């Protein structure tokens, strides 16, 4: 009976020693490999999904390139104010309004979430109601994306008795790039003063203290 007890004890000790020295280690290896395999299988599914999506792009490069060009015409990477002013001027002419004035901010320093920067535009146009209506419809249609934040119409009669509307439009154009407008250093730029006494003109620039005197005649 004692031998049996000792044998059972030995077997228990052997089993415990085997488990801690070998069994659990192999079991851990299996478990680690299984978890890593699941992750790799998930990665494979993601990769296959991405490849499938990119294959569609590769098979339709022309369509995608055209779409990207179109999107970049809406929101260009540089402010391209010349193109915008051209478009607005053509639109004003086509819709019959008179473009009286325009004030443009530089692109905002802080971009929005998507990385775009706002260029605030304040414009004044004059025309008849439906001409201005056409102008506003036109702004929505031009290649460059311009949104309107506010309008302010006031009406008056022109010399011929026609009702003329003066419209102030607060709008925003967008770009992804920023521009650095050089700051004018007053102390370096200095000021120019022109003085005319009789037929003698004196021009002085400070602080460089350059004085030019010209006698007329």
């Amino acid at each position, binding site marked *: 009976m004692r031998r049996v007890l000792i044998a059972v004890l030995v077997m228990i000790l052997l089993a415990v020693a085997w488990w801690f020295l070998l069994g659990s280690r192999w079991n851990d290896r299996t478990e680690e*490999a299984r978890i890593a395999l699941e992750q790799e299988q998930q990665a494979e599914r993601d*990769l296959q999904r991405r490849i499938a999506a990119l294959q569609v792009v590769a098979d339709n490069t022309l369509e995608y390139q055209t779409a990207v060009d179109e999107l970049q015409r809406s929101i260009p990477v540089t402010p391209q104010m010349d193109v915008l002013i051209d478009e607005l001027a053509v639109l004003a002419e086509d819709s019959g309004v008179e473009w009286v004035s325009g004030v443009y901010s530089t692109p905002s320093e802080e971009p929005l979430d998507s990385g775009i920067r706002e260029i605030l535009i304040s414009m004044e146009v004059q025309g008849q109601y439906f001409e201005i209506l056409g102008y506003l419809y036109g702004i*929505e249609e031009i290649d460059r994306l311009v949104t309107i934040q506010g*309008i*302010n119409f006031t009406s008056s009669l022109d010399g011929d008795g026609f009702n003329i509307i003066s419209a102030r439009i607060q709008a925003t154009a967008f770009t992804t790039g920023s521009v650095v407008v050089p700051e004018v250093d007053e102390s370096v730029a200095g000021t120019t003063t022109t003085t005319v006494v009789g037929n003698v003109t004196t021009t002085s620039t400070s602080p460089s203290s350059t004085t030019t005197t010209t006698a007329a005649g």
Partner: protein
Amino acid sequence: MRPINLLPPEQAERAQRRRGAFGVVFAVLLFVALLAVASVLLLGRARRAEEDLLAQQQRNQQLQRQLAELSDAEELRRAYLDGTDQVTDALAIDLAWGRFLNDVGRVIPDRVWLTTVAASAQDPEEQDEIEGSGPVYGSVTLGGVAFEYPDAATWIRTLDSTEWDAVAGAWVTTTNQGAIGGFDTVNFSSAASLTQEALGSRLDDRIPEVPQ
């Protein structure tokens, strides 16, 4: 037949102890053999799992190479998605001003004309909602002239009617008597909020469709 053992009982006891000892040793050896079998099974399972993992990693590396070959397409796709995000961001609050002013011209009643229109877009998250009309996307003030007070009232009713969903919460702020060329008139000013119906649909038009 009953077995007859003529050996001394001590020898029989020794033989029994020996058999007992062999039995114990045999049981321990059998147990060790079982542990060995379990070891082979566990080790084999671990190796198979590692081989599966290795094979999967090799497949993924091949897919990574395939993906790298599509880097131009990836760049193009990224440019497209960035562009759509930017346009969506820019058009977050895009009121259809042309349609709005067209509607003003359409609904304005006879015997009333407008002299001033001022409107601005607003962030709906910063405004209180109008009960029954939802979020507010802008506000508008309209000043005008009517022949008589009932004509001004007709304008307010028009502004507040369900016929024009883009405008809600209409309110008349002032009315006062005026005169044009010797005729009595009524000057009025009114205000209203612009609802979701005033929003444009440019987002759909501005994002070019591509095969997905």
